[in-house]
């Protein structure tokens, strides 16, 4: 056991720091074109698609290097790359299960953010029970006709392409009649309606598909193999943000301390109140444990180990921590923490969405983490069954199957 960074990692870190120092945009990126241009610059510097194989346009870097880039970007509050779902998840799905034609057609433009991708999985009546999805794709030979509704689609309004799960065999047991398709979002049969979240912003949307068309050549894997494909745990990008995430927590913590020194209650600065100190100590201890756990995950990835189901522990751990963190922060700050347009010293906290906002938005955002990408309850099922080997629950839908 030795957590000392290697000389190579240190050299890489200072190289990244220099590059960011010279290149991070001085002004806020407002338009999609500006963000695409910044993304392209990051890509060309070798900081996007880092773990992808070189022959597919990636950089063949190590998980440690990728984590260093994320960490350095967090330190200087650099605008993030875009197309994260594409590069982190959809692209790797195509790399593992896609045809050569699909790889040639889609991957490079995904990396460079020439084409933006979204994920069309969840439906109004298929959330944690994703396999009960109802969107249908009818096989017409050279293409499929898609009808149905998707929901919680991030980047929906700006997406050019989506990865879709749709039912192709309504008679098969529910896990066995689903196929995975790539869907062109820029067609008349696809309508995207923004959904407003409790934060007030509209970062995700509903997608309605009415006789939309998906070409046969855009089928991923075999017909009715969709569920299996969606279940594949992919080794790309996981753990990549383990350092950057904690750096963001720590930057926010310093702002919290600053606020606790300025604000007064009961005739003294908050920082002198033992109740406030106990809360600050609790946050910081947990924040550091997140950092140690992140290093542990990263070290396993760097040794080429795949965390598999154990990555559910990581996701459960940090999303639940975020909720406790911002709950305690708002308890400390009182009504100051609830200001939507805040005084300067409380502004520009990085929320778990990666977007700058106030403590109020960070607090609200922290409610999303334990729901998206498999809720905490689903993660606990995975941990219980696949890590601890506890018996599977007797489920009505499995009995039928």
């Amino acid at each position, binding site marked *: *056991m*030795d*957590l*000392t*960074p*290697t000389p190579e*990692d240190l050299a890489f870190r200072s190289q990244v720091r220099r590059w960011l120092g010279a290149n991070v945009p001085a002004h806020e990126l407002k338009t999609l074109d500006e963000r695409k241009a910044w993304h392209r610059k990051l890509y060309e510097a070798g900081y996007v698609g880092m773990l992808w194989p070189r022959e597919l346009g990636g950089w063949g870097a190590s998980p*440690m290097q990728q984590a260093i880039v994320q960490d350095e970007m967090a330190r200087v509050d650099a605008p993030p790359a875009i197309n994260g779902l594409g590069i982190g998840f959809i692209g790797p799905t195509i790399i593992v299960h896609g045809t050569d034609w699909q790889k040639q057609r889609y991957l490079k433009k995904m990396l460079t953010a020439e084409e933006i991708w979204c994920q069309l999985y969840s439906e109004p009546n298929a959330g944690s029970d994703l396999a009960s999805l109802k969107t249908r794709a009818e096989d017409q030979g050279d293409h499929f006709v898609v009808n149905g509704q998707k929901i919680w689609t991030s980047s929906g309004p700006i997406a050019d392409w989506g990865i879709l799960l749709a039912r192709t065999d309504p008679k098969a047991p529910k896990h066995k009649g689903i196929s995975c398709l790539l869907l062109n979002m820029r067609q008349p049969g696809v309508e995207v309606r923004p959904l407003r979240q409790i934060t007030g912003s509209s970062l995700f949307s509903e997608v309605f598909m009415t006789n939309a068309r998906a070409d046969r050549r855009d089928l991923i894997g075999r017909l009715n193999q969709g569920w299996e494909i969606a279940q594949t745990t992919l080794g790309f990008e996981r753990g990549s943000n383990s350092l950057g995430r904690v750096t963001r927590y720590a930057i926010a*913590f310093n702002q919290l*301390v600053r606020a*606790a*020194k300025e604000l007064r209650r009961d005739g003294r600065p908050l*920082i002198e109140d033992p109740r406030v*100190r*106990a809360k*600050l*100590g*609790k946050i*910081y*201890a*947990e924040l*550091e*444990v997140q950092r*140690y*756990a992140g*290093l*542990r995950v*990263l*070290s*396993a990835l*760097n*040794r080429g180990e795949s965390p598999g189901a154990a990555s559910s*522990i990581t996701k*459960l*751990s940090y999303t639940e921590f975020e909720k406790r963190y911002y709950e305690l922060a708002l308890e400390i700050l009182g009504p100051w923490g609830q200001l939507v347009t805040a005084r300067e010293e409380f502004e520009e906290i990085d929320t778990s969405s990666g977007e700058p906002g106030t403590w109020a938005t960070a607090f609200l955002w922290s409610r999303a983490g334990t729901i998206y990408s498999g809720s905490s*309850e689903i*993660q*606990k*099922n995975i*941990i*219980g*069954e696949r*890590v*601890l*080997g*506890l*018996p*599977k*629950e*007797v489920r009505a839908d499995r009995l039928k199957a």
Partner: protein
Amino acid sequence: MNFAFSSDQQLLKNSARAFLDEHMTPATVRLLWDDPRGESETLWKEMGELGWLGLSLPEAHGGSGLGMVETAILLEEMGRAAVPGPYLPTVLAARAIEESGTDGQRKRWLSAIATGDARATLAFLDADLDWRPEATQARAEKRATGWTLSGTKRFVPWAHVADVLLVPARTPDGLTLFLVDPGAAGLTLEPAQVMDGATRLVTVTLEGTPVAGDAVLGAPGQAGPLLASLLRRGAVGAAAEMLGAARRCLDMAVGYAKVREQFGQPIGSFQAIRHKCAEMLLEVENSHSAVYYAAWALDAKAEDAELAPSVAKAYVGDAARRVCGEAIQVHGGIGFTWEYDLHLYFKRAKALEAMYGDADHHRELIVRRVAA
């Protein structure tokens, strides 16, 4: 950067597990609970032969020259087995003697500790139970030849079996650490009974107890930093033991949930139980990260070497209490019986939660460091 144990470290862990599985069964632990002395002298000698007692001492004194990571590996296994005995206080005291002792003091104690011929402990807490070195109340007065010590030290681990006590006391020069013979005049030992039978705590009363002039450990008046450093090691060591106890409880809970049937199925198939077990695993794994990060930080003299032990003690103290408690809950009534072994580990973790500063104490230390 590698968080995994080296092959030597893994070997140490495996051999410790095998040794303790054989020699420190729950039945043996229970015998020692009922033993007035409370520890096994045979086991102690064997631990000396295995190199455990001199693990982090220099080779010149019969040690192996290893670090806190290796010490934590052993302590985790000892916590897993709820081993009764003065291992942690002895290695802490040995560390202090090695770091700050004179040649004479080192010669007198270190080899004897490494071979299992001597035990030592730290008589730190005064009656007001303050873990800050600067809050020490006991006093030392200079005499023509040496010193006399007065004061009451509470909850001193294993003082009744120790051959030497490390006693901090105030002097006109400031806080000073003394090596005190437990048989010295004016020194009385009064063992207390606590709920963990593997923990023996003793009240040490010093009434004008004479100690020789060469009994001062380190520079007179300069004991503060040494004590703070010892307490950090103690915190990591206690966290490692709590981790071991918590993992044992988790393993027992998961094992039970797989075989115990109610309503016609194993209770582990119910989400109410499965989710509890998942939450326990999360806290155990995070505790592992916290303990070994802190141990490594001490060994590597990392820039956060003074912070990480507090993080580990604060986090693991809370986590181990919850995990061991939830293991009882998963077991139901059987987990509440004296005959079932869970309470050995539940109580071991609880006892350690209060030692070397509890979670509240360490959270305050953290805030002083990061919000100054």
